[in-house]
C-alpha cells in the first residue's frame, strides 16, 4: 500500500530543513542555559535538595556569578573539587558559602582532571540503564506495533501506579504518566513521590523510580516489556532527560518548538535545551515523541496538515544533529479531522501514510482524536475505532489509545480498559489490511498526500528563507507569534565564553564522531 509521491520534493524538503536548522545550530553552539548546567550537575552527582527544598543543582547554578557561569557549571564544580579535595556531593550539601574566589584560580586542566572520575561515573550510569533495557527487552519481547500507549493521570503517583499495572494487564505496552499542568513552567524539578497536581502529578526522580519498579515487575509477570514515558518539555527539559536516563524511562515527549508555541517558553531557551536533552536521549536509548499533534488540536486539522509535515522535517533535522538515530525519532501526528467532513478519514489516511513513507525508519507516534470528542462517549468510541484502523493500516509505531471519555474527565480505569480493547480488536481484525490494498492512482488519498507534501515544502521554503526564529516571530507556526527575547526562561540563557566546558556534551560529541 504505497502512495505515489514526488520523492524529489521530499529530498528538497530535507535540504530546506537542514538550511532552516543550520543557523539555529550555530546559535545553540554559542549558548547554554541554567537548565543545561543543572542537568550537567545532576549527572555529576548533584541530585537531591537541601533542607529548604531547593535542589542542589539550582542552588549551585544560582551561586555562580555570570563570569563563572559562562565557563559552565562543571568548570566551577571541578575547580571546587580540586581546591577542597572533596566530591561533588559534599560540595552540594555544604552549608558554608562556596569558595568560588579560590576556585577561580584553579587551572582548567586541574579542574577537569578532578572531575574526570565523576564524568565517567555519570556516563556509566546512563549506559548501565540502557544496557539493562536492552537485556530486559531481549528477555521480554514487545508485541508487534502499533505499540499501545495509554496515559495515567490521577494526580497521585500511587494511584497512577495501580492504573499502570491494570493497563499493562489489559494490553498496554507503553504507559505515560501525565504531569501536573503547571510543571512545564517550574524552573526546578520537584523532589520525592507526589500525590497531588492538576491533570496529573509531578515528574520527579522518585516518581520515575516508583513507576519503573512497578512496570518491571509487571513486565516480568506478563513476559513482555512495558515501557515508561514522561515529558522532557518545559523549563527543565535537560534535567528531565537526565532523570529519565538514570531511571530507565524508555520514551520522552520532546519537541523542538512545542514549548515556544504552546507554553510561551522563550525560543532561545527551548532550542538550546532541546539540543542537549536530545543528546542525552540519544546516549540513553530513549525514543523521543514529538508534538505535532498540537498544531491540529489548536487549529483546523485540514489546513494545518502541511505544518505538521514541515514540523516533522524540522524535528527530524534537530534530532539527527543531537545524534538521535531515526529509530529513536518518534515523529508525531494526530487523527483530528472533523468527523462531519466527508472523506475526512481518507485525509487522515493520506497524512499518516505520507509520514510512514517519508520517515520509513522513524517510530511514528500517532495521537488520537481529542478536539472533536464530545461528551457523547458512544460516538467517541466509534471515532476511536476508525483512528485505530487508520493506525494499523498505515503501520504507525506508537499508538496513543483514544479514550471514549476524552474531554469529560481524566481517564477512569475502566475507560482505559475499553480503549485498549477497542484497539486490540480493530488492530487484530485488520492486522494486514494495509498489505492487501493499493491506493487508486490519482485518487482522493494520493492527491491529498501530494497536496500536503507541496504545502509543507512551500512552508519550509519560506521558513528557510526567513529564518526559523523570525518565522515563529511572524506567527508562521500554529498562528502563534513569539518574540526571540520574549517568553518564560529567557533570563536563563547565556553566552558561553571561550573557556566553557560541558564534559557530557564533549563526550557525547566524541562518541557521535566515533560512530560516524
Amino acid at each position: 500500500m504505497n502512495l505515489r509521491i514526488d520523492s524529489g520534493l521530499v529530498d528538497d524538503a530535507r535540504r530546506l530543513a537542514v538550511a532552516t536548522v543550520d543557523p539555529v545550530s550555530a546559535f545553540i553552539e554559542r549558548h547554554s542555559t541554567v537548565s543545561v548546567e543543572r542537568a550537567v550537575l545532576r549527572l555529576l552527582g548533584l541530585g537531591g535538595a537541601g533542607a529548604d527544598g531547593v535542589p542542589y543543582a539550582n542552588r549551585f547554578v544560582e551561586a555562580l556569578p555570570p563570569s563563572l557561569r559562562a565557563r559552565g557549571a562543571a568548570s566551577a564544580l571541578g575547580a571546587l573539587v580540586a581546591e577542597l579535595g572533596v566530591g561533588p556531593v559534599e560540595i552540594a550539601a555544604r552549608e558554608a558559602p562556596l569558595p568560588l574566589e579560590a576556585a577561580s584560580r584553579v587551572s582548567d586542566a586541574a579542574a577537569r582532571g578532578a572531575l574526570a572520575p565523576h564524568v565517567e561515573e555519570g556516563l556509566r550510569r546512563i549506559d548501565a540503564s540502557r544496557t539493562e533495557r536492552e537485556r530486559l527487552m531481549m528477555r521480554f519481547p514487545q508485541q508487534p506495533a502499533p505499540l499501545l500507549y495509554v496515559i495515567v493521570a490521577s494526580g497521585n503517583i500511587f494511584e497512577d501506579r495501580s492504573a499502570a499495572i491494570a493497563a499493562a494487564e489489559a494490553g498496554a505496552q507503553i504507559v505515560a504518566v501525565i504531569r501536573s499542568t503547571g510543571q512545564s513552567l517550574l524552573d526546578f524539578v520537584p523532589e520525592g513521590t507526589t500525590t497531588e497536581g492538576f491533570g496529573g502529578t509531578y515528574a520527579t526522580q522518585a516518581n520515575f523510580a516508583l513507576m519503573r519498579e512497578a512496570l518491571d515487575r509487571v513486565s516480568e509477570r506478563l513476559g513482555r516489556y512495558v515501557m515508561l514515558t514522561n515529558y522532557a518539555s518545559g523549563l527543565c527539559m535537560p534535567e528531565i532527560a537526565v532523570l529519565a536516563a538514570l531511571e530507565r524511562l524508555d520514551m520522552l515527549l520532546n519537541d523542538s518548538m512545542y514549548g515556544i508555541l504552546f507554553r510561551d517558553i522563550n525560543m532561545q531557551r527551548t532550542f538550546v535545551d532541546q539540543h542537549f536533552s536530545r543528546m542525552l536521549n540519544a546516549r540513553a536509548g530513549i525514543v523521543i515523541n514529538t508534538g505535532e499533534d498540537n498544531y491540529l488540536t489548536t487549529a483546523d486539522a485540514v489546513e494545518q496538515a502541511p505544518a505538521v509535515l514541515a514540523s516533522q522535517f524540522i524535528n527530524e533535522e534537530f534530532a539527527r544533529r543531537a545524534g538521535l538515530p531515526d529509530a529513536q525519532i518518534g515523529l508525531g501526528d494526530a487523527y483530528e479531522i472533523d468527523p462531519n467532513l466527508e472523506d475526512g478519514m481518507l485525509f487522515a489516511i493520506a497524512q499518516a501514510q505520507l509520514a510512514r513513507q517519508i520517515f520509513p525508519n522513524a517510530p511514528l507516534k500517532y495521537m488520537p482524536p481529542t478536539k472533536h470528542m464530545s461528551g457523547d462517549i458512544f460516538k467517541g468510541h466509534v471515532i476511536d475505532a476508525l483512528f485505530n484502523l487508520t493506525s494499523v493500516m498505515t503501520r504507525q509505531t506508537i499508538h496513543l489509545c483514544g479514550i471514549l471519555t476524552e474531554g469529560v474527565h481524566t481517564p477512569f480505569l475502566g475507560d482505559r480498559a475499553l480503549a485498549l480493547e477497542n484497539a486490540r480488536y480493530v488492530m487484530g481484525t485488520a492486522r494486514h489490511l494495509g498489505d492487501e490494498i493499493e491506493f487508486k492512482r490519482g485518487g482522493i488519498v494520493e492527491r491529498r498526500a501530494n497536496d500536503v507534501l507541496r504545502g509543507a515544502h512551500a512552508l519550509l521554503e519560506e521558513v528557510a528563507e526567513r529564518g526559523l526564529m523570525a518565522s515563529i516571530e511572524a506567527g508562521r507556526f500554529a498562528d502563534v507569534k513569539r518574540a526571540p527575547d520574549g517568553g518564560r526562561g529567557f533570563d536563563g540563557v547565556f553566552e558561553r565564553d571561550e573557556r566553557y566546558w560541558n564534559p557530557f556534551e564533549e563526550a557525547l560529541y566524541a562518541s557521535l564522531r566515533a560512530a560516524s
Partner: protein
Amino acid sequence: MSRYVKPYGDTLDDGKVQLSFTLPIEWSEAADEAARRLVVAMGFGDVAIAEGRPISSGFSFFVAYASTPAAIDVAAIPSTARATNVLSMEDIDARIRERVGRKVRVAGACIGSDAHTVGIDAILNMKGYRGDYGLERYKEFEVFNLGSQVSIGRLARFVGDEAIDAVLVSQVVTQKGSDVRNFTALIELLEAEGIRDRLLLIAGGPRMTNLLANELGYDAGFGRGTLPSQVAAFIAERLSERASV
C-alpha cells in the same frame, strides 16, 4: 404546572437507564451478583447485568440495565438559556457603534495552571470556530488574549490597568474542583479591587453551563460548541443595556 418525566427505554415511564462501572474485585459470577445488588442498592429496579468481565487483576467491569422509580418535574427547572438573539458580525459591530459608542475592550485568559487554550482561542482568534469569526475580527472589539496559565492576580491587574469591559475566563481541567475554586477566587479578587460591577464576567470551558456560571457569580457561562458570535452578541447586548441606563 408540574410535568413529571422518567427515562424512556421503549415505553413511556419505564424508567430505563444504562450504567457501566468498574469494581475493584476479581471477576467471578459472584462479582456479577455483587454488581447487581449494588445497582439495586442505588435504588433501581429490574436490574440486569448485561456484561460482567475481568479487565485486569483485581478489577471487573460491568454494564447494567435497570429501571429507576425516580421522576423529575421538568416544569420546575429554571431556564438556563441566555437571552441573546442570533446576530451577524456586522449587526453586532453596528450595535456597539450605535449604543456603546466606543470600542469594547475584551480580555481572555485561561486561569490557574490550566494550559488548554483551545476554547478561548476559538472564541478570540480572528479565525474563529466552525466558520464563525472570532472576536479579533470584529471592528468594535479590542481583544487581549493573555493565553494560558495566567494567575488570577495578573488577570485582575490587567483588567484594572487596561480598562477592560468584558473578561472571558476559561478553565478546562476539572480535577478535584480546581476550576470552581479558581473561578470563585477571581470574583473575590475583582470585588476586593472594587471593579467587579463595571465588568462583564464570562466563564467558559467544556463543562461550563450558564446555570453554573450564574451560581458562581458570573454574568454568563458558555460551554462546548459555543460560537464566537454567541459570545459577541451577549457582550454587545449587555453593554448596550448598560449604556442606555
